[in-house]
């Protein structure tokens, strides 16, 4: 249970546990966001500027453009799965930070 006094946000924000949580989240979210943007926008770029290349058949009647478009769905699902798995770690780290708030102010917070 949380205590009733308002949390000392500045103190919590400065704790090593919270800095660690922010770094861990950024280490996943920043590359993941850059990756999915790059992967997604390469579709309209390739389709728009290299239509002949993208129309080449690679899987029976299917061309590169369609297979690449379908792969976007798979990419989105895999990334969502990976994030969910990583987020379990973030949840545990967040609970540590919340637990710090319940502790009486120790010697570290003079």
């Amino acid at each position, binding site marked *: 249970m949380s205590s009733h006094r308002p949390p000392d*946000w500045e103190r919590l924000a400065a704790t090593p546990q919270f800095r660690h949580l922010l770094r861990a989240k950024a280490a996943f979210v920043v590359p993941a966001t850059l990756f999915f943007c790059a992967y997604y926008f390469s579709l309209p770029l390739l389709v728009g500027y290299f239509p002949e290349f993208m129309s080449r058949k690679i899987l029976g009647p299917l061309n590169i453009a369609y297979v690449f*478009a379908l792969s976007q769905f798979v990419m989105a699902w895999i990334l*969502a799965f990976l994030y969910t798995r990583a987020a379990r770690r973030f949840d545990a780290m*967040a609970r540590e930070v919340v637990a710090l708030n319940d502790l009486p102010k120790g010697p570290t917070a003079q």
Partner: protein
Amino acid sequence: MNVPLFIFLAFVALTLAITAWAARRSSGAASYFAAGRRITGWQNGLAVAGDYMSAASFLGIAGLIAFNGYDGFMYSVGWLVAYLTVLLIVAEPLRNAGKYTMADILAYRLSPRPVRAMAALATLTVSTFYMIAQMVGAGALVSLLLKDSGITYSTAVGAVGLLMIVYVVFGGMLATTWVQIVKAILLMGGTLLLSILVLSHFGFSFAAFFDAVTHVRYTLNGVPVEQDFLTPGLKYKPPYGALDLISLGMALIFGTAGLPHILIRFYTVPDARTARVSVVWAMAIIGAFYVMTTFLGFGAATIVGRDFIASNGGINMSAPLLAQFLGGDTFFAFISAVAFATILAVVAGLTISASSSFSHDFWTNVVHHGSERGPYEEVRVARITAFVVGIVAIVLAIALGPGANVAFLVGLAFSVAASANLPAIVLSIFWKRFNTAGAVAALGAGLASSIGLILISPGVRGPAAIFPLENPGILSIPIGFAAAVIATLASNDRSSEIKFAELQVRGNTGLGAEKPTPH
């Protein structure tokens, strides 16, 4: 009584029963605006899917693919990948730091009155345009389907509008949520059935199906032609086609995470973890649906044919006509009823987002300076707003008529969301220096540039267009971000930095986040 009308009335009866049940359980603001924050992960996933997959998805994409092949499928891809932005960046901090509306996260450390006033304006703009698009679609559909029963376009628009008013005024977010869940199940069921029927038409052979897709016959300018519909570029042609595709992609990818009616769904779950789970559920459902648009769209192109659709109701009737070809009149009626359910659930979501923003952002926080007006006043104002918004949408949809440019209205909604709302949300979460001037500038510039560019685009001006692209995102999104950065740096206001630590800790840990209401 004819079959479509019967199936539609059965759905209406079910949703009214849900509304009556929700109205009995609903008490207090958190209950009315956020369903008590007790919706579970999979339920909210279905509701997000039901809130999101609109007439544009079901009728619109099927038609775009049936007429333009591959290029139409680009919408399907973008509308799913967009949820990665929601999942990775927006959903969890929003749930942790906010209460009822999109503006809550902006007002957290910025000056509430100007920010909420602008955010309410953006929300009402997005919701109203999006809603009118849905109602025009519903009216056109009804008048076509039930043309022998004497139901006109205006009657149909009025009926849709009155139903959504009833759901939202009496049932609040709880009724809206369950209407969206029922609709999502119906839509997925109908789409799956239709896809199976398309495949069975080709003897369950993917090879035969895609072989037909690469040899689609139709008439172009009076000349019969044969076309590979998997070829890109049938809709987006040089010289500006490639830029238009990229611009469309930007609006879809960055707009979804700025749609107020989607964002407020994350307040209906108990905590940020459940919000995350619900996005993943939504991605599974929405993704499965958009993959199946392959069968809907290409099925209509190969089985029904572009020529027949064009002379029997037009591009938006591709999916219902496909159902009629494959399953006869009863299945046609069922799919049409699914299309109504789709539209109704979306307009209900839009209405509650517009009315909660007006009540919570504008009435309580702008007009009354955030002073507590008693828990019932906010709900009462929201109910009155829902009623007014509904009436205004009915009047506008009837005034615009069945020929209104629906794609323009939806494009405008996505563009405002991506160019105005998203920069303000993202920068307020991640940039310590961001301040009130920056947020107001982002919302104002994003809103103005979206509307301005669309008004001079080919979608509105035709060949006389000044701006060559149909989708303004490629220009208006950078304008929104640039306005935010420039206005922030030009202002000496540093007061927003004081609460940055608080927003960071709360957004990332859920400490102090709004709790679900007790039973």
